[in-house]
C-alpha cells in the first residue's frame, strides 16, 4: 500500500510496523509529529508526552529494559537534555530494541542553535543511521530495531528538518507483533557501578568493532558508479540534493549507516574517482573520516559550514553561481516577523512590564520568546528551555552586589510547559539560595509554541484521557515561596498591580502566575468552568471617536491596523477574539474601543 507521508509520519509508521509498544517524547520542531503520529496507533502503541526529554528517554529506557521495543524522539537541543541517561544506557543496553530519534535543524528554521548531533554517536559510542527520504525513514526504524537488539545498544536515528517535514511516497507494510521479551533481573548488565561498568566499558569497545564490520556489509551504505571523474559522498537529504545537481554525471557513495563509518567502502570509492565531493550539513563529520583515511576531498573548504546544502547552495559552491533568477531590488518587501497571536494571554504582561525602568528580563523558550522585539522590546536574554530561572538568579545575585543605577531587579519569565520541563529546577534554586529574583510564569494552559501539545496543566494526556491539573501555584508554594500571586493577564490593572507588588518587595523572591488559556487550546471541562467568557466577544473601534493616538497599537496585536491616511485604527474582525486588552489602552477621555458580545 502506497501512502504520501512526511518523514515524521513515516518514522511513526515504521515503529508501528516494527512492533514498538511504548513511545515517549517532549515536543520540539521538527520532531513533534513523530509522537503525535505514534499516538494514532492506539491499542498497539502507548505514546506519552513526557515533561522533558530526559524523562522521555528514561521512560523509554525503562520500557526497553523490561523487554518492549521502544522509541523516543526529540529536536537536536532536546538530546542535550536527555544526554545523561543516553550515555550510560550505551553501556548497559536494552532488552527490547530502542531507537533514539534526533531531529536536527540545519538552517535553524525554528531553533536557537545548529548543533550537529551526529557527534553524539561517536561521543556516546552508539551506532547511527541517517535516512534520506520518507521511505527510508520508515524502513530504517525496523533495521535500527534489529541492530539495537542484536548488538545490545540503543541506536541513534538522525533526521533533519527536510527529512522530517518533507512528504514522499512510501510503500507501507503491516505490523509484526514482536511481543515483550521476558524480563529477568540481571545486575551485571543493568547496574553501572564502577566495578561493573568498567567491564561494560570494554564490552562497548568490542561492540563497536563488530559494528564496524556491520557497517561494511550493510546495504544502507552503497555506491552507485556512473563516472570516474566526480564522486560524491553524502548522507541524509544531502544525497538527494547532490543527485538533483549532478544527476548521472557523478558517482555516489550514499551512507545510511554513519557510525561507525564504513572505512573500507570509503577507501574503495575514493580510489575509483578523480575528484571527491563530501556534501553534508553542519560539521565535517564524513569529511574528517575521508581525510583520516588519507584522501583529498572537497568539503568545508568549498561548501558552507552552516545552513542547508540545498541544490542552489551546492551549485553556487561548485559552479560559482545558482540557476538564473529574476532580479528584484527588495524595495517591495517588508519583513513579516512572527508575532504574538491576537488574543495571546502573554500580551498583557509584556505590555505592562515594558513600561518599567531598571528591570532586566531573563527570557526563555516559548511563544513569549517573541517579546524581545517591537513593540515590547522586553526580554534581555534567553538561552535554552528552562534557563530563565537559573540565569535570572545568577544575574540577580550579581546585581545585588552593586549600588545605585547599576543595581537592577531581574524578572525571570517562562511558560507552563517550560516550568515543568526544567524551569522549576531553577525555581528551587532561587528558593533555596534566597535571591530576590521575580519569577513570572505565563500559564496559557498548553504547550503553545510547538503547536499545542497537552502538558501537566492542560487537563489531557496525549491519549486524550482526562487528567487532573498539576497546579503550578501549589508546586511553587511547596518549594517555600511565600509571595505567590495569580492574575488574569488580560486585566491590565491587575497585571500592573502584581508587577508593582513584586518589585516593591526588595528582600524576598516573588512569583507571579498569569493564568488565561491560549486561543487555540482545546478547552477541558475545567477550562469551560473557569473561563466561561473566554473568546465569546469582539472588540470594536468607533471610527468617529478614534483620534489615531496609536496607544492600542503598542499592544502589538495583529488584529489592529493603523490607517495612516485616515489617521484611525481599526480592528480586523475575523482576527479579534475579544481579549479586551486594547480597550484598556484607549485613553480614558476617548474610550473609542468597546466590547461587543456575540
Amino acid at each position, binding site marked *: 500500500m*502506497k501512502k*504520501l507521508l512526511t518523514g515524521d509520519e513515516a518514522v511513526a509508521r515504521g515503529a508501528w510496523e516494527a512492533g514498538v509498544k511504548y513511545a515517549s517524547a517532549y515536543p520540539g*520542531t*521538527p520532531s513533534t509529529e513523530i509522537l503525535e503520529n505514534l499516538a494514532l496507533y492506539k491499542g498497539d502503541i502507548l505514546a506519552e508526552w513526557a515533561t522533558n526529554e530526559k524523562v522521555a528517554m528514561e521512560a523509554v529506557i525503562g520500557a526497553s529494559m523490561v523487554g518492549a521495543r521502544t522509541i523516543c524522539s526529540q529536536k537536536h537541543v532536546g538530546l542535550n537534555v536527555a544526554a545523561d541517561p543516553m550515555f550510560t544506557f550505551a553501556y548497559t543496553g536494552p532488552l527490547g530494541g530502542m531507537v533514539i530519534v534526533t531531529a536536527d535543524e540545519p538552517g535553524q*528554521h*525554528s531553533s536557537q542553535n545548529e548543533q550537529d548531533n551526529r557527534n553524539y554517536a561517536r561521543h556516546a559510542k552508539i551506532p547511527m543511521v541517517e535516512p534520506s527520504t520518507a521511505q527510508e525513514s520508515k524502513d530504517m526504524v525496523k533495521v535500527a530495531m534489529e541492530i539495537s537488539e542484536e548488538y545490545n545498544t540503543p541506536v541513534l536515528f538522525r533526521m533533519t*528538518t*527536510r527529512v522530517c*517535514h*518533507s*512528504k*514522499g*511516497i512510501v510503500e507501507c507494510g503491516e505490523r509484526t507483533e514482536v511481543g515483550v521479551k521476558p524480563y529477568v533481573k540481571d545486575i551485571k548488565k543493568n547496574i553501572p557501578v564502577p566495578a561493573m561498568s568498567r567491564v561494560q566499558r570494554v564490552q562497548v569497545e568490542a561492540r563497536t568493532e563488530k559494528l564496524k564490520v556491520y557497517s561494511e556489509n550493510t546495504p544502507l551504505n552503497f555506491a552507485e558508479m556512473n563516472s570516474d571523474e566526480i564522486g560524491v559522498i553524502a548522507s541524509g*537529504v544531502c544525497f*538527494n*540534493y547532490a*543527485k*538533483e545537481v549532478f544527476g548521472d554525471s557523478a558517482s555516489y557513495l550514499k551512507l545510511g549507516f554513519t557510525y561507525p563509518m564504513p572505512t573500507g567502502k570509503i577507501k574503495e570509492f575514493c580510489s575509483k574517482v578523480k575528484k571527491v565531493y563530501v556534501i553534508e550539513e553542519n560539521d565535517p563529520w564524513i569529511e574528517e573520516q575521508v581525510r583520516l583515511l588519507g584522501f583529498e576531498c572537497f568539503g568545508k573548504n568549498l561548501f558552507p559550514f552552516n545552513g*542547508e546544502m*540545498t*541544490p*542552489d547552495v551546492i*551549485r553556487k559552491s561548485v559552479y560559482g553561481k*545558482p*540557476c*538564473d*533568477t*529574476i532580479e*528584484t531590488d527588495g*524595495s*517591495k*518587501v*517588508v*519583513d*513579516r*516577523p*512572527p*508575532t*504574538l*497571536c491576537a488574543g495571546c494571554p502573554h500580551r498583557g504582561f509584556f505590555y505592562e512590564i515594558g513600561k518599567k525602568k531598571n528591570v532586566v528580563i531573563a527570557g526563555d523558550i516559548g*511563544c513569549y520568546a*517573541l517579546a524581545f522585539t*517591537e*513593540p515590547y522590546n522586553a526580554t534581555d536574554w534567553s538561552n535554552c528551555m528552562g534557563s530563565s530561572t537559573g540565569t535570572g538568579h545568577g544575574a540577580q545575585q550579581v546585581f545585588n552586589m552593586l549600588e545605585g543605577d547599576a543595581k537592577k531587579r531581574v524578572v525571570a519569565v517562562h511558560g507552563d510547559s517550560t516550568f515543568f520541563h526544567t524551569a522549576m529546577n531553577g525555581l528551587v534554586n532561587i528558593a533555596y539560595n534566597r535571591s530576590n529574583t521575580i519569577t513570572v510564569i505565563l500559564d496559557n494552559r498548553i504547550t503553545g509554541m510547538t*503547536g499545542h501539545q497537552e502538558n501537566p496543566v492542560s487537563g489531557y494526556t496525549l491519549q486524550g484521557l482526562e487528567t487532573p491539573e498539576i497546579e503550578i501555584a501549589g508546586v511553587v508554594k511547596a518549594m517555600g515561596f511565600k509571595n505567590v500571586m495569580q492574575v488574569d493577564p488580560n486585566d491590565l490593572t491587575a497585571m500592573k498591580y502584581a508587577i508593582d507588588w513584586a518589585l516593591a518587595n526588595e528582600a524576598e523572591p516573588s512569583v507571579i502566575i498569569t493564568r488565561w488559556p491560549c486561543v*487555540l487550546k482545546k478547552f477541558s471541562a475545567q477550562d469551560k468552568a473557569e473561563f466561561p467568557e473566554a473568546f465569546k466577544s469582539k472588540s470594536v473601534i468607533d471610527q468617529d471617536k478614534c483620534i489615531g493616538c*496609536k496607544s492600542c*497599537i503598542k499592544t*502589538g496585536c*495583529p488584529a*489592529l*491596523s*493603523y490607517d*495612516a491616511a485616515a489617521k484611525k485604527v481599526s480592528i480586523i474582525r*475575523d482576527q479579534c477574539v475579544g481579549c479586551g486588552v486594547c480597550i484598556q489602552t484607549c485613553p480614558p477621555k476617548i474610550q473609542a474601543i468597546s466590547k461587543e458580545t456575540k
Partner: protein
Amino acid sequence: MTKSIMLVGVGGQGTILAAKLLTVALMDAGYDVKMSEIHGMSQRGGSVSSQVRYGKEVHSPVIEEGGADILVAFEKMEAMRWLNYLNPKGKVVVNNWEIKSMPIVTGKVDYPAGIIEELGAKVPTTSIDAAKLATELGNSKVMNVILLGATVKSMGLDTLDWERIIKENVKPALAELNIKALKLGMAQV
C-alpha cells in the same frame, strides 16, 4: 522533467491544504511527488511556503532559487519575497490580497505599492481577486482552493480527477463548495 510548484503566503491562509490536495492528486495520477514545507512559525503570522515537485523520479524535496515553474502567492507581498525562487521563464499566480505585517500595522512603513504591476513587468502574471470570489461563493475560507484551481490550470493539470480527489480529502459537507471553488479558480486562467 521534474516540475516545481511553489505556494507561498502567510500562516493561516491554507497553503498547506492546497499543497496537500495537489500532492495527493499528483500521486494518484502516477507521478513521483515530493513536498516540503516550513511551518514552525506558521501559527504566528509568519511567511510560509509549501513546495511541490513532481515528475518521473524526484530527488530534492525543496525547490532551489530560480527553480520554480510557477510561483503561487496567496498574498501579494509574499510574491515579491519569494520571486527569486521562480525560473525567469516561469509564471506567477497572485492573489490580489494584502495582509499587513507588524511593521506595517504599527505604521512604521507603508504596504508597498505597485506589486502586481512590477510582477507583470517581469514575468507572465495572473492576478486573481480570490477573496472577492470566495465571498461570492459564500465562504471566505475557500480562497485557497480558488488559487489551487488557477494553479492546476496554469500547469496543465486540470484534467486530473479533481472531483474525486476533493471528495476523498475534504469534509463531505464542504466537498461541493470546494469543487465549485476549484472550477472557479480554473476559469480565472
